């Protein structure tokens, strides 16, 4: 453990970054998933096709590749645009934090699209009719009936999507984000102890995934409370 002396705060701040990326990408992932599901369930053929293309592409290509394409693709484009105005510019990029969060949210959002679509289809249409018959607007019905009912069905796979997200944050070190893996690599460079450093990173991720798993379990219990009491 003495090898770790002096590196604790690097790992700590790296973990904070992992937490931040997770938080931002979780929100984006839910947004992408809901938009994707809404498009797939819409009556518009065009929207359906676009959403189909989205899920096929992002579920069918390696995550690392998507991350690199988005980061370098956006950097090449931005650099070209910047050079139009100032030819001395060498390289402009989107900050790795945002490029990374966006990329992993886009990838996991393609899985969430399918999860949300299935869960919305699992809502009993009779309950929606009952809400409309009482005079609730479609927006009220969405928030008070559809979402709470689909939520229960979506939670178990959604927990898996959150685990995917947290693990995917590790990929972002490759485009230079100062997270835990990045900290480990620097520590390895200085101490020559790769095994120790990678174990530390592993423990940090296990900590994160344990918190997620426990949270999802608690949420599932809450979402199924009406079924629990019936037993």
């Amino acid at each position, binding site marked *: 453990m003495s090898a770790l002396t002096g590196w604790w705060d690097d790992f700590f701040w790296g973990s904070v970054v992992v937490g931040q990326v997770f938080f931002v990408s979780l929100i984006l992932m839910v947004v992408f998933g809901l938009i994707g599901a809404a498009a797939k369930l819409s009556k518009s053929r065009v929207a359906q096709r676009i959403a189909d293309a989205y899920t096929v592409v992002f579920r069918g290509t390696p995550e690392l590749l998507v991350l690199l394409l988005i980061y370098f693709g956006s950097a090449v484009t931005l650099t070209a645009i910047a050079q139009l105005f100032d030819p001395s510019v060498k390289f402009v990029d989107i900050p790795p934090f945002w490029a990374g969060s966006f990329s992993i949210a886009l990838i996991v959002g393609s899985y969430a699209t399918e999860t949300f679509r299935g869960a919305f289809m699992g809502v*009993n249409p*009779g*309950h929606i*009719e*009952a*809400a*409309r*018959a*009482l*005079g*609730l*607007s479609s927006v*009220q019905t969405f928030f*008070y*009936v559809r979402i*709470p*009912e689909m939520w*229960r069905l979506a939670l178990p796979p959604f927990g898996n999507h959150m685990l995917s997200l947290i693990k995917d944050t590790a990929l972002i070190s490759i485009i230079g984000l100062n997270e835990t893996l990045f900290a480990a690599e620097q520590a390895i460079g200085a101490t020559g102890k790769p095994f120790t450093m990678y174990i530390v990173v592993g423990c940090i991720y296990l900590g994160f995934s344990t918190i997620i798993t426990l949270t999802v379990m608690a949420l599932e219990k809450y*979402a199924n*409370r*009406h*079924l629990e*009491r*019936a037993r």
Partner: protein
Amino acid sequence: MSANVTDPIIVLENVDKFFGPFQALKNVSLSVRKGEKIVVCGPSGSGKSTMIRCINRLEEHNSGTIIVNGHELTDKTNDIDAVRSEIGMVFQSFNLFPHMTVLRNLMLAPRLVRKTNKVEAEALARQYLERVRIPEQADKYPIQLSGGQQQRVAIARALCMKPEVMLFDEPTSALDPEMISEVLDVMVDLAREGMTMICVTHEMGFARSVADKVVFMDGGEIVEVAGPTEFFESPRNERTKLFLSQILAH
């Protein structure tokens, strides 16, 4: 009697409804006055549900006129939510919101649609639970109740909106036989209190005791409309006779 007592509260005139090429309602006309109780019967697939679902626009009719409580239902009815809030509907399969307690099921629409405050909405909910005789179930979830209790909650939920009209679509068809009467009793009470009701049901005892008119549908058409005594004792149409012989046989 003042004019609004005798004026019809629901009018259907020459209503047609198509599902794709299939015509589910054919030139249906019906008028219901305030306080009237209409029982609708007919074979499965004859368009009974479709007709009452058109009245609160869960289905959109294709031609003809539907006027509910002074509002004509058209594509341009932009305040359909307000019209619906004046019409209570009870479904065969109860359709309670499973994730809410009984009390919250009852409070939801008054709070969201009528903007009633929480205290009043709860008082209203408890009052109607009392009326359907299950005040002690307020804090349970629907799944914990029997079918008969769930249906009574569904009736109370509709009543909490203080509707002008109540629509019932085979409210007892999904119930075990021993639970049918507890639901019918509540409906009879409601009828006695003067509620305007359209009930799709094959409970002929209920029809005889509360109906002002019995409407018989077959093949998307209204075949016969008559007072209950006339309907059961001396039906005019052959199809009505056949139907009655079938349902009274078992």
